């Protein structure tokens, strides 16, 4: 399970009104929990030092952090491990990863109702458009830099991607 699935899951839980979700998938166990309801604490005295006015609303309790597996300090668990290494994902076929050159929102097709640029099994060559990453209202086409066969598409439409995030697995010629 990669970071983005976790993000997506977080968003879904946040919007669902459900207070706790637990997922087990192979060795990975992920628990997402939302806040205990926040309570107004009646507190006399100044709410903010140095003459600041009281806060308009009580501060919400921060959400419980996502239970990433075993975050050791000595060798921190890589939170943004590429999905290839995550036990939850099916073992990808051997190949080369094509990674995101920028941060933005991924689109696999030129328009919502259009066919995707590439599907697993497609042959690609240098210069072929693989996807679009939207950043700051600009649609940036990501072009292929090698010839080969697409083995896998790793992200989903309109999903946010970060720099260096694997997008495709390609079997180069």
């Amino acid at each position, binding site marked *: 399970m990669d970071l983005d699935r976790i993000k997506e899951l977080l968003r879904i839980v946040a919007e669902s009104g459900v207070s706790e979700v637990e997922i087990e998938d192979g060795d990975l166990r992920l628990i997402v929990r939302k806040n205990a309801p926040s309570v107004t604490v009646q507190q006399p005295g100044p709410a903010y030092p140095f003459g600041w006015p009281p806060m308009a609303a009580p501060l919400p309790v*921060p959400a419980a952090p996502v239970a990433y597996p075993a975050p050791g300090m000595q060798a921190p668990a890589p939170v943004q491990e590429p999905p290839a290494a995550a036990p939850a994902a099916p073992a990808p076929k051997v190949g080369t990863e094509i990674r995101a050159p920028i941060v933005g929102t991924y689109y696999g097709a030129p328009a919502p109702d259009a066919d995707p640029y590439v599907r697993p099994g497609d042959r690609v060559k240098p210069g072929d458009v693989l996807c679009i990453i939207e950043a700051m209202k600009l649609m940036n086409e990501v072009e292929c830099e090698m010839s080969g066969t697409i083995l896998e598409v790793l992200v989903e439409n309109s999903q946010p991607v970060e720099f260096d995030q694997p997008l495709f697995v390609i079997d180069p010629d």
Partner: protein
Amino acid sequence: MIRKVLIANRGEIALRIIRTCHEMGLRTVAVYSTADRDSLHVRFADEAVCIGPPASRDSYLRFDRILAAAEVTGADAIHPGYGFLAENPDFSAICEDHHIKFIGPNPETIRMMGDKSLAKDTMRDAGVPVVPGSKGVVTDVESGRGIAAEIGYPVIVKASAGGGGRGMRVVQKEEEFARQFQMASGEAEAAFGDGSVYVEKFVSSPRHIEVQVMGDGKGRVIHFGERECSIQRRHQKLLEESPSPVVDEQLRARMGDAAIRGAEAVLYEGAGTVEFLLDASGEFYFMEMNTRIQVEHPVTEEVTDTDLIAAQILVAMGEPMAAADLRMEGHAIECRINAENPFRGFSPSPGRILTFHPPGGHGVRVDTHVYAGYVIPPHYDSMIAKLIVRGANRDMAIHKMLRALGEFVIEGVQTTIPFHLQLLRHPDFQAGRFDTRFLERFELQDPDAAGS
């Protein structure tokens, strides 16, 4: 004049005292058992003397070995910390005999306050409110029953020499009195070798509120406000805060005055704590006086901007205490981080700490003697760190503590951090609605059991 202080203790409080001594330009001597060779109090003291094997009775409780260590190192004062010999009147006396300044009250005061009946009588005579009950110890069931009838049920039968809940029985109605009285007395005899008990009114829904005082030994006493210590599990405090969410200016003044009256009556010297029970109607009763620094003293330091250890030492040096108005600012909370598994009945979890990363930043204080690689010995108590935060008000302090606990990484042993996180998120805790029995009702959610 004090120039070199021997610290007759271990763990975080030994390090706490060493730090302030060094900041005051005083030399320090650590004593340690063979189980504590790798503890930070040994590392950071100017000198360290091994005094015995791991068992406390052969090391930290041995008068002769500690005094010999003071002699060979030329220490001119002994700070006892808390626990061990801190409230032992004979140790205070023997230090006096050897012309070594005991940083704490004189033997008579310690003895008097250590005897619960005598302490209560002394306080009552000084005009401090006490729980209605027997004057002194009750030796037979019949006179006990008479007193109980007079003050009204429910009553509590308590060991005179007791502590930690042993020799303590609540009696709801007269029919049960004889049986409960005999059980309390029997437990007291077994636990303390002293079966004497007293009988008093049982205060329901009480909060444990204590007042920090400091006396100069000549009859002047000042107070530093209160601490709320109602979050207890089997009489063991787990979280403390200052101020109490239910104590207002007027109540604080009344409790402070009472604490000062009591301490002045015994010409109190040094740091002490007067513990009160506060009932739901706002009435408070003297419980006992602790004649030492407390584990939870940092919350008072944070809101009153004081170094209580430095204050203890200055008083011991004979520095006069100037008059000062109490000024409490902000709100401080302390969480005791124990090597215990809160999901298994707080069972001790000794062993090697593999990873230790304390939280930091604005308003966060950590008092600890441990580090990555430290082995928690099984011979002593399980507290491995105190996490203290200060915020502008209680709400902000709670949020700061949640943030700090969330950053605290301890691997290799179980700790009470998950307990504190759940407690601090509890609506009743956030609203300040709790008493000393709150943790009996509090349901801890075990994350490992969530899916089962």
